[in-house]
């Protein structure tokens, strides 16, 4: 039982990370219709930028986190402007190729700047404690709390602010939004910035727990993609639910059945769900 609870806790923590990263991606995919396959690599970059402020410049953890979010937000704006906006009106597969080009670039960039060796941020909250027989560190609990806070915050932002409404409006009808006087390009850039900043947030919270390496974004990026599809393209609740589902499947499948095949369970679950609901959990009827 303790073991089970431990695995559930682990699953929720993974799921929190997945949810945050997928949330950012679903905004970009749903609103801008850009299959940004480089999202995982932006997460990676976010981790390194946090490392830079925290370990190299010696700023505190929270300050580094903030700085990382701001820088990645700017990276997002630049990426939208330089890479994806010129591709407007072209088939999504071209965006996909551009995303692959970007991720190759980002990985090579991180390799050139920070080298291949794994880097690591000293854990600011390494204390462990026991709860219901589960061992947990404060940092891990923090990840879960941060994810919850982000989800609630984003919900309020989308539903209660005019800016949030404009983002939804652009997602639902780009030209319609344009004609009401919304600066669609600006909304695109803001959306991209939110997306990359949340990736940086996730990376910042995890970097004390995990090792940073230039190729760490590849699998996570792919999983984020899968979660977005699992939840239904562009659906925010879908991305959150999908993230937690994937996290739990991995933790339980990996813990109880086979670690080697834990990704098989995750990807298999996606196939299963999509074969029953071909447009995802919260997807619209026709893709």
């Amino acid at each position, binding site marked *: 039982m303790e073991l089970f609870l431990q695995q559930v806790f682990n699953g929720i923590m993974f799921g929190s990370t997945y949810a945050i990263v997928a949330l950012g991606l679903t905004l970009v995919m749903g609103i801008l219709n850009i299959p940004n396959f480089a999202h995982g690599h932006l997460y990676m970059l976010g981790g390194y930028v946090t490392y830079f402020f925290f370990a190299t410049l010696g700023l505190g953890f929270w300050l580094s986190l903030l700085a990382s979010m701001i820088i990645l937000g700017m990276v997002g704006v630049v990426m939208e402007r330089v890479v994806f906006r010129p591709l407007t009106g072209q088939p999504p597969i071209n965006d996909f190729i551009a995303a692959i080009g970007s991720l190759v670039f980002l990985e090579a960039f991180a390799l050139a700047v920070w080298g291949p*060796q794994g880097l690591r941020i000293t854990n600011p909250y390494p204390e462990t404690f026991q709860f219901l027989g589960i061992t947990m560190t404060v940092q891990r609990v923090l990840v879960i709390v941060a994810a919850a806070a982000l989800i609630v915050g984003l919900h309020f932002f989308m539903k209660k602010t005019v800016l949030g409404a404009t983002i939804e409006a652009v997602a639902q009808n780009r030209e319609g939004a344009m004609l009401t006087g919304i600066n669609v390009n600006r909304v695109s850039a803001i959306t991209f910035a939110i997306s990359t900043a949340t990736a940086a947030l996730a990376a910042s919270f995890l970097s004390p727990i995990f090792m940073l390496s230039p190729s760490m974004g590849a699998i996570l990026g792919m999983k984020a993609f899968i979660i977005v599809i699992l939840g239904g393209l562009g659906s925010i609740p879908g991305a959150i639910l999908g993230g937690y589902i994937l996290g739990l499947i991995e933790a339980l499948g990996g813990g109880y059945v086979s670690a080697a095949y834990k990704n098989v369970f995750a990807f298999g679950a996606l196939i299963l769900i999509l074969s029953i609901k071909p447009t995802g959990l919260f997807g619209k009827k026709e893709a």
Partner: protein
Amino acid sequence: MKHLILPMRMAVIGIFAWAALSTNALAKDVVIGFTGPLSGPGAGYGRDVLNGIKMAADDINKGGGITVKGKKYTVKVEGLDDRIDPTIAVNNARRLSSRSKARVIFNPVFNTIAPLMQINQQKTSQFLLMAYSSTPKIEQIPNDLTVSIPPPFTAYVNAFCDMAWKKGWRKGAMMVTLGAYGDEWREAFKHHWEEIGGEILADKPANYYTETDFSAQLSAVIATHPEFLLIGGPSEPTGLVIEQAHNLGFNGGFVLVDQAKMDYIADVVFKGDLSKMGNVIGVAPIVGLPSPVIPEWNKRYEKEYGVHDTFEALLNYSATMIVVHAMEKAGTIDNPQAIKAAFAKVLPQDPTKVPTPFIGTLGPKLLITTTAGEIIDGKYTKVNQYVWWTKDEAAYMELLKSIPASDNVVTSWLPLKGYLQ
């Protein structure tokens, strides 16, 4: 369909232009080739190997290069990235052997070594393959132009088992990296450990290359209350495993597979604080090795490449030295068979000149003692050095004369099945 003419024409022109533009090495250079992962998940490992080779070449060139049949040559190292992709590795090897006339090529990953062994005996591109991989699988492929550099991992398995047994450990659990290497390792360890009377309580492999959080598997193995954990893969994640195991309340010891290096983990992950690691058995720390040149070598290496030194760099440094000296002895720079045949003549290496001296050859293998070390109570203990290939005590005693001795090293004989001469 008219539009097809131009692209086709340009493609053909492109191929020929590219062929013409490719560079050739200068006549006065001896090129030693390397293909391995310089980007992607294996990049750190591949760069360590390449650094070792480069440093050896630099040292030789500083000493005036090499003299073959009265002619002076400088050693030039050409390293190419293959990202552990067999296609690129074969392309690279062809490029090194055809364009740069490299007759010796290093490669550090079995997945790319195997395809290179397919081509290195072809008349069009013959080269000596210096394979850095401790899996005995290499010896299963018949190939006259391959040399395997590191000691077989089974020697470590036996040595670590003995050490753990002597500490009084009986119950272990395993959480080794996934993949061929890890699979073979834990298989061999389990077999040997149970043979000598120990017990393995749990076996939960994890992917050290793609995963960064091991709490799921760790929770499962720790729940069986083992006295020690067999863990390991690349060094950094192995360090994380140790940390996370402590966080989950584990107080037992660790045995590290030979890919993970305890001194690297101590320095990089734990910032030099050995006490944070608990009791550990693993490959000996480099500072504990018997060769007198080690401290100086260490300093130079870390200054030159800006990274922590590794066993991979050391062994490939020494292996490069053998290759270059063998060229001098063989009197040829472009006959790989002759170079390989001359290996025996330059061995054993002088321990006052190379940090990890090779002692001899056995079939396709270079011979070197297996060195194991321990951390107890936040301190390194004396290094254990094992000779694993002699067929009996007498042969071992004979060999002992040529092995460097030191106060910090305990040497012993470790009979290893399959290698006893």
